[in-house]
C-alpha cells in the first residue's frame, strides 16, 4: 500500500493505492472523502488506451517508433529550426497538472537547452487573473494564504464564481458551518447549498463587487481601524465604487438591491468571514480587475491577514499553485521570481551555471496564435495539456497547430492534441512516478510512486533529459530522479517569494505539513503580521466595471458561459476514458431555459447547435428552469464538435493575459 494523492484537482485528496486499487485516506483537506473521479482514478493505470510506445507521423499517419528514433528525430528537427530561425522558433507549452519537479525542469529546459523565451502553460487559462490580483494587493500570490481547515470555523463565506460541489466535492465539508453566499449566474449544485445566491448576468461580476463595496461603506460596515493600520489606497478605490450605488448595480447585474445589502451584512456581522474566488469570476478579459474588486471588498471589511478570516482563490488544476511558481510561465523564473528582474536572473543563471537567459515570452494564447506565423514558433513541445479541447477559439488553435513544422506531445493517452502531433511520447502518470504537488492551500505534498509503469513508457523528466543531451547539454544538468530535481529546485527557489528551500522529501515523508514559504518553518498563514509589499501593507487597487468584451446583439442574442461537471476533469482526456464517468456524463450538453429552447425550436434531449462568431458546437439540450433566459451553459470537457471552446472568445485580460472563457455572444439553433 502506498500513500499518495488524487491525480485530479487542486484539493489533492489523500488516498492510498494498493495493487492498482484506490481507497480514500484521512487528511485535513479531504477528511477521508473522495468524489467519483478520485474513486475511479486508478482505472487509467491499466487502461487499454494507454500509450506504450512513441509514435511518429509518416505519410499522414502515426506509426510506432523506438524512443531513440523519436527523440533523435525531434532533436534534429529542433536544431534545424533553431539554426534557420533562431531559438524562439521553438515553443514549449506546459500544464498546471505537472509536478513541481517537472514544471521546474521544463522551464529550465526551455531557457537553457532550447534557449527560447517562448514558454507558457495552461495555468494562464486558469489561475492567472487571481495570481495577478493577489500579487497587486498583497505583494504575493498564494491562492489560499491559510489552511483549508481554517474555513471550518468560518461563520460566513462569500464564494464567487466557484462550484466546488462539482469541481472539488470533498472541499464542501469545510463550508458546512458557515452561512454561504454564492455568486454565480447559474443555480449550480453549490448555489443550492447557499443561504443566499446572487446571480449576476455573465460578465457583470465586477459591477457587483463594486456595489458590495458601496454597500459596505453606506451601511456602516467599513473597518476603519484595519484600513488605517494595514492598507493603502482606499480613497481611490472608493471614488469609483461611490458611483456604483446598489440600484445602479442592480440594473447592470440583475442582482436585487436587498440581496446585495444582505450579502454584505452577513459578511460584516460574522465573527469569521472569508471571500473566495474561482474561475467563474476570473476567466474574463477584465478578470484581474474583477478579482481586485473582490479583494477590495475583503479589505474594506478587514478580512485578509487576520486569523479566522481572509481572502483566497480556489486553485483549479492539481498543481495549479506549484505550477505557477517555478518557471514554466512566460514571465517567471523559479521561486516566483520575475524574469525581468536583473537580480533574479543573475541568481538563477548562477544556479543553472549559464551566462544568460532569454527574457519574457508570449502568454499562452498569444503563443498559440503565433504558431507557424512568420515571427512565431515553428515547433511546439506540449507537456500536460490538451490544447485542442481546452484552449479558447479552439478551431483557430487547431489551425495554428497545423501550421507548425513540428508538434511534439507528451501524454499518457492519445489525447485530441496528441492525435494531430508529429511525434507523440508516451509518459508515466501519477501512481508510476514520484513528485511533489502544491495544493490549493500552498501545502507541498509528496506523491510517491506506487507501482511500476508499463513497459515502453518514460517520465517527463526522462524525456527532458533525452532531448537536452541530444541538444548538447551535459547530462547532469537535467536529472531524471525527482528528488534530485527537487534538491535543485530548493536552491533555485531560495530567497524567492515561493521559497521551498526548507522543504525536503524526508520531511514530507515524515508527514510534516509544510506550507510555503518554508525557509525552515512552515508558513500556514502568510499575512498575519504583514503583507508582502515593502511597507507591509495591502493595497486597494482602483478598478472600474467594463463589461464583457463581446456584447450580445441581434445575430448572437444569448450569452454562453462554460464550466465543469463533477465527473470530468479539464479537457476530459483522462476522465472520458473511465467507463463509470462516461456512463454518468457521456456527452456534450447545453443547459438552457425551457423557453429559450422552445424559441429555438428545440426540446429537451434533442441535439442543438450553439453558434458564436468563432464556431459552432453541437450539444444535447437540457432544459433547466433556473437558467436565465439569455444564457446558455456548456461544460468544456468534451471533444470533437461538442467542444465548448469552439465558441469562446480569446479577448485577453491586459494584465493576466487570461482569455474570456466565461462569456461570449451566441445563438441557439436546431441542428
Amino acid at each position, binding site marked *: 500500500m502506498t500513500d499518495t494523492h488524487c491525480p485530479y484537482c487542486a484539493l489533492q485528496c489523500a488516498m492510498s493505492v494498493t495493487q492498482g486499487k484506490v481507497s480514500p485516506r484521512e487528511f485535513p483537506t479531504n477528511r477521508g472523502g473522495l468524489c467519483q473521479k478520485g474513486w475511479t482514478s486508478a482505472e487509467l493505470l491499466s487502461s487499454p488506451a494507454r500509450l506504450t510506445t512513441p509514435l511518429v507521423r509518416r505519410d499522414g499517419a502515426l506509426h510506432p517508433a523506438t524512443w531513440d528514433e523519436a527523440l533523435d528525430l525531434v532533436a534534429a528537427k529542433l536544431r534545424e529550426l533553431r539554426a534557420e530561425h533562431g531559438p524562439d522558433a521553438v515553443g514549449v507549452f506546459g500544464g498546471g497538472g505537472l509536478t513541481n519537479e517537472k514544471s521546474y525542469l521544463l522551464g529550465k529546459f526551455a531557457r537553457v537547452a532550447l534557449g527560447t523565451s517562448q514558454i507558457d502553460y495552461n495555468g494562464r487559462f486558469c489561475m492567472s487573473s487571481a495570481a495577478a490580483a493577489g500579487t497587486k494587493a498583497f505583494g504575493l500570490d498564494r491562492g489560499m494564504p491559510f489552511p483549508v481547515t481554517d474555513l471550518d470555523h468560518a461563520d460566513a463565506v462569500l464564494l464567487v464564481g466557484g462550484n466546488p460541489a462539482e469541481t472539488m466535492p470533498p*472541499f464542501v465539508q469545510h463550508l458546512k458551518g458557515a452561512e454561504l453566499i454564492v455568486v454565480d449566474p447559474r443555480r449550480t449544485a453549490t448555489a443550492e447549498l447557499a443561504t443566499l445566491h446572487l446571480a449576476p448576468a455573465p460578465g457583470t461580476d465586477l459591477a457587483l463587487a463594486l456595489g458590495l463595496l458601496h454597500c459596505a461603506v453606506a451601511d456602516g460596515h467599513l473597518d476603519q481601524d484595519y484600513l488605517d493600520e494595514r492598507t493603502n489606497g482606499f480613497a481611490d478605490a472608493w*471614488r469609483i465604487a*461611490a*458611483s456604483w450605488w446598489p440600484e445602479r448595480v*442592480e440594473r447592470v447585474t440583475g442582482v436585487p438591491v436587498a440581496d446585495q445589502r444582505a450579502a454584505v451584512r452577513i459578511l460584516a456581522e460574522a465573527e469569521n468571514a472569508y471571500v473566495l474566488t474561482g474561475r467563474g469570476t476570473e476567466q474574463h478579459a477584465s478578470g484581474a480587475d474583477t478579482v481586485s474588486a473582490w479583494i477590495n471588498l475583503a479589505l474594506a471589511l478587514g478580512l485578509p491577514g487576520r486569523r479566522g478570516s481572509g481572502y483566497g482563490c480556489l486553485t483549479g488544476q492539481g498543481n495549479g499553485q506549484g505550477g505557477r511558481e517555478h518557471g514554466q510561465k512566460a514571465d517567471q523564473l523559479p521561486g516566483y521570481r520575475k524574469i525581468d528582474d536583473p537580480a533574479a536572473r543573475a541568481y538563477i543563471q548562477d544556479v543553472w551555471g549559464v551566462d544568460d537567459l532569454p527574457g519574457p515570452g508570449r502568454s499562452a494564447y498569444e503563443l498559440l496564435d503565433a504558431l507557424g506565423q512568420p515571427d512565431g514558433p515553428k515547433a511546439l513541445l506540449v507537456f500536460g495539456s490538451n490544447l485542442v479541447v481546452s484552449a479558447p477559439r479552439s478551431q483557430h488553435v487547431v489551425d495554428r497547430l497545423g501550421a507548425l513544422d513540428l508538434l511534439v506531445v507528451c501524454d499518457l493517452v492519445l489525447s485530441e492534441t496528441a492525435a494531430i502531433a508529429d511525434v507523440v511520447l508516451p509518459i508515466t502518470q501519477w501512481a508510476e512516478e514520484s513528485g511533489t504537488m502544491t495544493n490549493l492551500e500552498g501545502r507541498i505534498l509528496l506523491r510517491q510512486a506506487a507501482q511500476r509503469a508499463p513497459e515502453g513508457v518514460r517520465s517527463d523528466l526522462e524525456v527532458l533529459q533525452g532531448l537536452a543531451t541530444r541538444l548538447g547539454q551535459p547530462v547532469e544538468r537535467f536529472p531524471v530522479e525527482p528528488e534530485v530535481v527537487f534538491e535543485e529546485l530548493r536552491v533555485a527557489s531560495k530567497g524567492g517569494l515561493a521559497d521551498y528551500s526548507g522543504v525536503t522529501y524526508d520531511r514530507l515523508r515524515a508527514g510534516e505539513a509544510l506550507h510555503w514559504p518554508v525557509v525552515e518553518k512552515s508558513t500556514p498563514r502568510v499575512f498575519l503580521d504583514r503583507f508582502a509589499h515593502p511597507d507591509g501593507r495591502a493595497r486597494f487597487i482602483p478598478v472600474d466595471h467594463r463589461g464583457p468584451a463581446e456584447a450580445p446583439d441581434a445575430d448572437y442574442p444569448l450569452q454562453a458561459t462554460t464550466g465543469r461537471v463533477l465527473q470530468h476533469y479539464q479537457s476530459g482526456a483522462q476522465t472520458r476514458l473511465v467507463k463509470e464517468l462516461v456512463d454518468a456524463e457521456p456527452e456534450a450538453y447545453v443547459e438552457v431555459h425551457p423557453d429559450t429552447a422552445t424559441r429555438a425550436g428545440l426540446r429537451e434531449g434533442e441535439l442543438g447547435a450553439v453558434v458564436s462568431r468563432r464556431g459552432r458546437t453541437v450539444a444535447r439540450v437540457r432544459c433547466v428552469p433556473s437558467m436565465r433566459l*439569455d444564457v446558455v451553459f456548456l461544460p468544456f470537457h468534451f471533444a470533437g464538435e461538442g467542444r465548448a471552446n469552439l465558441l469562446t472568445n480569446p479577448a485577453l485580460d491586459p494584465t493576466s493575459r487570461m482569455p474570456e472563457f466565461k462569456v461570449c455572444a451566441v445563438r441557439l439553433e436546431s441542428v
Partner: protein
Amino acid sequence: MTRNVVIVGYGMAGARLADEIRRRDPRAERVSVTVLGDEAHPAYNRVLLSSVVAGSLSPEAVRLHDADWAAKHHVDLRLGGGVSKIDRTRRVVHVGDTEVPYDSLVLATGARSWVPPTEGLLDGNGDLAPGVVAFRSLDDCARIVNAASPGTPVAVLGGGLLGLEAARGLAGRGCLVTVVHPVGHLMERQLDRGAGRVLAKTLESLGIEFRLGALASKYLPGDGLLLDDGTQVPAELVVVSAGVRAETGLAAEAGIAVDRGILVDDALRTSDPRVHAIGDCAQHVGTVSGLVQPAWEQAAVVADLVTGTAPASRYSGTTVVTRLKARDVDLAALGDVHCEVDDPDAEVLCFQDPARGRYAKLVLRDDKVTGAIVLGAPDAAAAITQLFDRGLPAPTDRLALLLGRALPAENEASPADLPASAVVCRCNTVSKGQIVSAWRAGATTVSSIAEKTRASTGCGGCKDAVCGIVDWLAASQPQPV
C-alpha cells in the same frame, strides 16, 4: 495644436465629460479642457445626496473627484465663479472680469429647484425664507442635516422620487415627516393610482405621513404649512422637492434656441454647432431627463466628438428605469404603465397585496416588457428590469416572473416519492435505485451502503438522505435475507 474645450458646469454631467475626455486623451494631446464651476467645492455625486440626508454617506464620501484631480488630469478647473455671458461671435465666455476662449463649448449647467408659488416660501429678495431648504445641492443637504435633529417635525413639499427619498432619509434620522403632494397619489408620473397607494402605505409604516391632493397655500415660519383645505402641517423645516427647471438662461441670452431645455440634436449640438449641451439642461427629442444615466451617455458622445475619437458617435436616447433609493422600500418603475388590465392592445398583469406592501404590474407587447411597476418584490424588480433593458421576450411563466421568489419553495420529496433514477449522492452519482438494490442485497446501514455504492463518501452532504432511505426501507419493505 490642441483645441480648447470649455465646459460650463461642474456637476455630474460636466465632471463626467471631463473624465471621459481624459480617458480618450489622457495626456491632453488633442484637447485642453477648462471646467467652470459655480459651487466652491469639487464635483459631487448628486444621486447620493439622499444617502447624505439619510446619514449613510458623509459629504466627503460623495465627492466625484479628489482635490488634486484637476492637476493630475491636465484640467484647468475654476471654481466658485459663475459664467456671466457667452460671446458666440468672439467665441469666449465671461467669468467675472476674465474671458475664457473656446473652440468647443459644452453647456452642462444642470437644473435648479422649482419653488411652488406658496406664499412665504421666498423672502423679499427671491431667496428661500429661513426654515425653507431646497433639496438639490450638497450645501442644501448640510442645511437639512443641520436642522433635522430627532423629533423635529419636517414637511416635504413634493411626493415625487426625490421628495420621497428625502422623506425616507429624514424619517430614518428620527424626524417626524409629512409629505405634502398636490396630486392624489405619489409619483404620479411613474406610478398608477394603485401602486401609489401601496407605496404610501409602505412609507407610512416607516413613520411618514401624507397629505395628498393638497396644495400648500402659506408658509408659517417656525410653525409649518397652511394647506388649501384649511388644515395645517406642523414643520420646523420645510424641504422643497417639487421638481426642477433646466438652467437655460445663459444659452437663451446668447441667442441659442431653448424650449424647456437647451435644444440639442443627436450629436448634442445646440442651434450653434460649436456649442453642445448635456445633462439636465439639455432637451433631446422633447425630453429633458433630469437623470444621471442620460447625462453620462451624453457625456461619452460629446467626448467622442470633441476629441475626434469617434466622429460618428451619436446619442439616441436612454431607456429610463426609475428606482427609488430608500431603505426598506423596493420600488422599480419602467416604461409605460398607464394602461388598464383590459387594454386590448397589451397584455397586462396586475398583482395587489397592500397588506404586505406588494404591488406588481406588468405590461407586455409582442411578448416583451414595455412597462412595469414592481413594489415590494425585490427579485422580480431586478429580473423584470433586465428583461426590459435587454429587450428579451418574457418567460412564458408570467406568474413566476411577476412574483419572483414569493412562490412557495417546492417541498422536498420524501424517500418514498423519489423516483428510482433520482441522484442521491451527487459526488459519486449514486441513485436511489442503486441504494435500494444495495439494501436488498444486505447493506442495511448507512456505512455498509457507503461501502457498497460509495454514497456519502464524497462531501458527506447526502448522509441524511441516505439515512432517510434506509429508515424508509426498514419500515416499508420486507427485510433482506
